[in-house]
Every structure is written in C-alpha cells, then in structure tokens.
C-alpha cells in the first residue's frame, strides 16, 4: 500500500525533529534543508541515517547529500518505499 505524501511528510518531520534542533512544525515541503532549516553536513547525514531506520529503506550517502528540500526528501522516501528496498 502506498502511503500518501502527507503521511510521509509527517513521519519525515517527526524524524527530523528527533535528530536535529528543527521543530516538527517547521518541516514543510517547500523548506530548503540547508538554507531554511539550517542543517549542517553532519546533521544532514544523521537525518539520512534516521530516515533509513524509520522507513526501513536504503539510501546511498550520495542520495542523502543531494537532498535539497523537504519535498525532495518525501520523494526519495516514497520512491524507495515503492521499490520495496529494505535496509538491513
């Protein structure tokens, strides 16, 4: 069953709030991860690890580093979920 973008966004927001100092309410689709949410490279990398754990997906370090906006995050999560790729 495919999750809606809204469901994924809510989980992405919760994940980010857990591992960074960004508040859940600030995580909206149009937000830029670095310019708006002020993630630094290590925070982004940790967020990437946390996403993989939460959604049971596998993302490469390159995929995580290329993420620009929250919308990109939702897209990459949804694509990985749809492919049924599971993390170890």
């Amino acid at each position, binding site marked *: 069953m495919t999750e809606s973008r809204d469901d994924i966004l809510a989980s992405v927001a919760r994940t980010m709030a857990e*591992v*960074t*100092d960004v508040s859940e309410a600030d995580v909206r689709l149009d937000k830029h991860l670095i310019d708006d949410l002020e993630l630094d*490279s*290590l925070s982004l*990398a*940790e967020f990437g*690890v946390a996403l*993989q*754990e939460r959604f049971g997906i*596998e*993302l*490469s*370090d390159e995929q995580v580093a290329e993420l620009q906006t929250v919308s990109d995050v939702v897209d990459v999560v949804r694509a990985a979920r749809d492919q049924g790729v599971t*993390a*170890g």
Partner: protein
Amino acid sequence: MRSVVVTGLGATTPLGGDVPSTWSALLAGESGAAALTAEWAQRLPVRIGAPLRKECAGALGRLEARRLDRSQQIALLAAREAWHDAGSPQVEPQRLAVVFGTGLGGVHTTIDQHTRLENHRPGMVSPFTIPMIMPNGAAAVVSLELGARGGAHAPMSACASGAEAIATGLALIRSGRADVVVAGGTDACLHPLPLAAFTKMGTLSTRNDSPETASRPFDRDRDGFVMGEGAGAVVLERGEFAASRNARAHAVLAGADVTSDAHHMTTPNSDGQIRAIRGALMSADLTAAEVSHVNAHATGTRLGDETEARSIAEAVGSHPSVAATKAQTSHLIGGAGAVEAIFTILTMRESVIPASRNLDQVDVGVPIDVVSGEPRAASVEAAISNSFGFGGHSVVLAFTQ
C-alpha cells in the same frame, strides 16, 4: 611567579550528581559501587562497578545527549557546575583555555558504532562517531560551551589524566598564556570490553558478592579496584585576575609536577612517584614537613598501594594524614585525578579529612596514617593529591590555603 587559585569546582560521580552531594556522601562513608545487573554484565568474571549516582541524561539537552559520548556529556556537566561555582568569570575568550583529559575516551561510542557497522552497513554509522570518540572531544565540547579560544588541550596519561589536566592548566597560567583555565578529567567506560580487559590484567576486585566492600585501598584484604565512571572539573585563575573580580578562592594551586618512570607499562614504580612528589613540593615552594595531608591515588591493588605508601613515606614522611577516597568513589579512571583534587581542596577548606571505608587493617609495609572509621577534624595548610597512570605517569598536585 604568578599565583593560581581555584575558584570553581564541579563533578558528577558514583557518590553524587554534583560536588556538594558527592562530598557529603564521601564524608558519610557511602560506597558508589554496586552489582552490575544489566544483561551484558552477567557473563563477565567481574560484575561490579560504580555507575553515576545521578543519571546524566536528564541534565542535558536532547542533542547533547545524542551527539556527545557519555564521557563528554559528564565532562560538560562537571565543567558547567565548576563554571557556575566560579561565578561565570568575565574573561576575554583568548585568555580562557580548557584542558580536559580522559583515560579511554569515547568507549561506548566506539563499541556501539562498531556493533552498528557489523549489524547493518557502513552507511548506517553515525556521522558524529569521530567527534564522539576522539580523545580531545571532551576538551572541545567544553571549549565550545564556554567560547574558550585560548586553547583546548587534552592530556592523556591514563588514570592520571584528570590530574595532568590541572597541572597543565597551572602551567598555562604561570607561563602567561591564559588568565582562566577550566581543567578536568572524565571517563565513562562501564562496558563489557574495558571490564573484561581490566579483569584480564588482574587489576579488578572480584568481590562480585559484596560490591560495597570491594574497593579497599591499603587494606590487608584488598584485591584490586572497582571501575567507576565520573568527571571532575575545576576553574583555575591567575590570582590577580580572581582578586580583581572579587572571586572567592577555594584554595591555591601552589604547584604540580608530572614525571614518567620509563620502568614498565603497568607496574608501578616509586622512583617516578617520589620525583613527582618532590617536584610538586619544589614547584609549590613547600617542604615535606609542611605537607600535612595526602589524597592518595590508592586504587586498592596489592602492588600499587604498597608502592605508593613507600613513595609517600619517603618523599613526605609518616606525619601526614592520608585519604584513600577510591574506597568510596571507586576508580573513575580519567576522572579520578580531577575529582580527587576537588576532595583535597574540600578537605582543606572544610578542615575535615574523609575516612576511607573498608579499611580494617593497613597492610602496606610502611607506616602511613590512613584515616578510617570516622572523618577526622584537622586544620590542613598544605596538601598534595597523587595520581598515577598506566604507562608510568605520575602526577602530583600541591594545594595550600
């Protein structure tokens, strides 16, 4: 020579979450040791240890708890308490330095992340692993917290690291490099690997059935130390600087010395210890006769205590009172020297010598006056604190009123 005073004290230990609670538990003769009940401990030959009395997570921010190794978390808490105790001195960032030592560094993180690597894949390792395991991490964390730009140093001398940090702080102020230094030591390694490894060396007490009586420095029936976790920190200030802001001084850090004995990696050696004691007294412009109290390293190993007793008897004499505070705290590894410096300072300030628990009969081959039973009221004008570490490190700090 520039005088250096101690204006702030901070600690979190198996006896308490701060300096006042630790000190009162020390005087009450409480033990920080306990049976390790976690599942991981049950297959170990030694299943006792001394965890923090007050779990540290609640005192930390959410991200601090996530992104700092436990050894760094407790270093930060001890430094915060010391800084607050000193009245948060207004000092130019370039004139504020940090020196924080550790014996083993980010052990929990090293092993946990290795487990993660084995169980998952390289991409699932935390990007904060390196800052969490690097031995300078605690010094860096404290310098970031305080905005200290006068250098962040991390001396490594195993169980003498906390004392060497304070000795380094003294040198920084005396040489004119800093006006204020936050110095301390930390370790948090209650984990199966260090416990198994220390056991394999034959250094740990095996009294699994009686943790509270296991740490018995200088006692006839001692059989090794009990591993604990903890951190201590002090704020050191150039005397004139402290006076100019009307800061209260707990004590004067009058001198220090650091020696290496080049004798053996792990076997203690009186020569290095004696030279460190004499060097510290010379640095403090004190005679042996003027030293009336010694806070001993005294971990509770057979050979270590005997060697130290000989060193004290030879370099200071049989007149000083001796406190063996690891009987209560257990051995805080890199945190020990800093926490025991604090005990030495409080002994002088409060005019009371803590009694070592578990001391039924002193058996070290030479006469030394180890205080046991009840704390002893005594005016102490000058005292030293000994710290020794694997690798042949001897560090002695000398304090005066």
